[in-house]
């Protein structure tokens, strides 16, 4: 992908993120991500119905990478089945961690395919996937 385009997409999602802003609703799963290695601090909430992600929202203070990744990630996951979500997360995390991955399933999330060149930003890019992972974990516990 062209660097300028990549930057434009990330910046646009940072400055005008989708799905930002939390709502009062107890039917959502909730999680706070407050990573050890960086100062990003985002809250996430996700609603799953009949095995499908109906909604994901996030809010908080975070850098350009993690805010934009949260915007793109939430947009990419809404409407997907839980199994599809899991597949996307695994591939996304593999991409960030420089392991083999399938770029086909990642769509727009491919804009972060070069983040590994900046090791100090990996956790920023991973933040939303860690959050969704945690919420899916909670889902597992409830069953």
């Amino acid at each position, binding site marked *: 992908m062209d660097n300028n385009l990549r930057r434009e997409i990330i910046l646009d999602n940072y400055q005008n993120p989708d799905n930002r802003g939390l709502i009062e609703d107890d039917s959502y799963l909730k999680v706070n991500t407050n990573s050890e290695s960086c*100062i990003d601090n985002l809250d996430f909430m996700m609603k799953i119905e009949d095995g499908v992600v109906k909604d994901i929202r996030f809010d908080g203070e*975070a850098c350009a*990478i993690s805010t934009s990744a949260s915007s793109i990630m939430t947009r990419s996951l809404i409407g997907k089945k839980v199994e599809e979500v899991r597949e996307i997360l695994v591939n996304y995390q593999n991409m960030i961690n420089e392991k083999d991955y399938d770029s086909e399933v990642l769509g727009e999330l491919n804009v972060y395919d070069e983040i590994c060149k900046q090791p100090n930003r990996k956790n920023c890019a991973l933040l939303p996937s860690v959050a969704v992972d945690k919420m899916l974990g909670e889902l597992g516990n409830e069953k």
Partner: protein
Amino acid sequence: MHREDFPMLENDIVYFDNGATTLKSKRVVDSMDKYYLEHTSNIHRGDYDSAVITNELYDGTRDVVSHFINCDSREVIFTSGTTMSINMVVFGFMKYYLTDKDEVLLTKSEHASNILPWIVLAEEIGFKIKYIDLDDNYELTLDNVKKSITDKTKVISIAHVTNVIGDVRDIKSIGEICKKKNIILNVDGAQSVPHMKVDFKDMNIDFLSFSGHKMGGPTGVGVLVGRYELLEKMKPLCYGGGMNNYFEDDNSYELKEIPTRFEAGTPAIAEVIGLRSAILYLEDIGIDNIHKHEMELKKYLVDKLEKIDNITIYNKNSNSGIIAFNVDGVFAQDTSVFLNHYKIAVRAGNHCAKELKDVIGIKNTVRVSMYLYNNKEDIDRLVEALKNNKEIFNVVL
């Protein structure tokens, strides 16, 4: 000043993260190497030559500390750092001193290590934690200290210099008030002892904590200084070798005298020796010269930053080498990653002062914190980089 003493500076970096930790001079590292390579031995018993050398250096470091901050040598306890020192005060002394009727005064700009131990002990004992109000510059005024004191106030626990705003508290005046009212003054000196003259006795401090690594010394060592009468009432948090006179199978035991009784087990010997070199080094340069140098640099930096349109400085006037700012509309971490591209090391974050966000209304800032080896060229390089701040996202994305 003295840049040649700091090998890390040979790497063409600008190091402005001295509030987090400082660079080490060759003198400090050499003294530790010497211990490891030439006279390794444990302390306390010294029948052979290398042990004698080690013992003298270790125990002699108490005299070095006592000279540096004006306390008695027997009031100097080696700890693993400020955090440990404050925890010893809270859980070794305050736990037996405070009751549920008492009040402890803190401020919202304290470091986590001077809030969380109090919260945890309050949970146990039920005393009340109150926060002294800060003024419009997020600083602590003497008036506000006085206003917060009630008949129930037993302790004031504050940083001498805070690590976000870098305001310098008037410890001497606060110490006088505390002495009159029989309030214990616990001072977090992590950001002051390395940078300015701190006089334990003259300031009427009861407990003072600081860390070696923030004053050119090694990690893993710090100091707790306590007024001797109070140390007599303090209990060790750790028991074991090196701190007892005897113990018997009828469960009788006797602890060693102060301060040894607070240093159970083999301490960080190399680090104490490194701390000694670090303090001697600061004394050679003169702590007042260091403070003056930092203040000159701060003024130079603030004058230049003010000329850049979209930068907000949060603590122009504070009397220390700490500057907190943000590039408008840019998250602090993005700015610090941007500066890293110019090999400039700064820190972004809330700097462990999590409650301060309620006061400033912003959670995160970029912090520049200076030390003796910084110079005007460092600042010029920072300012040149920040002038390009329109480019931040082109650089960091």
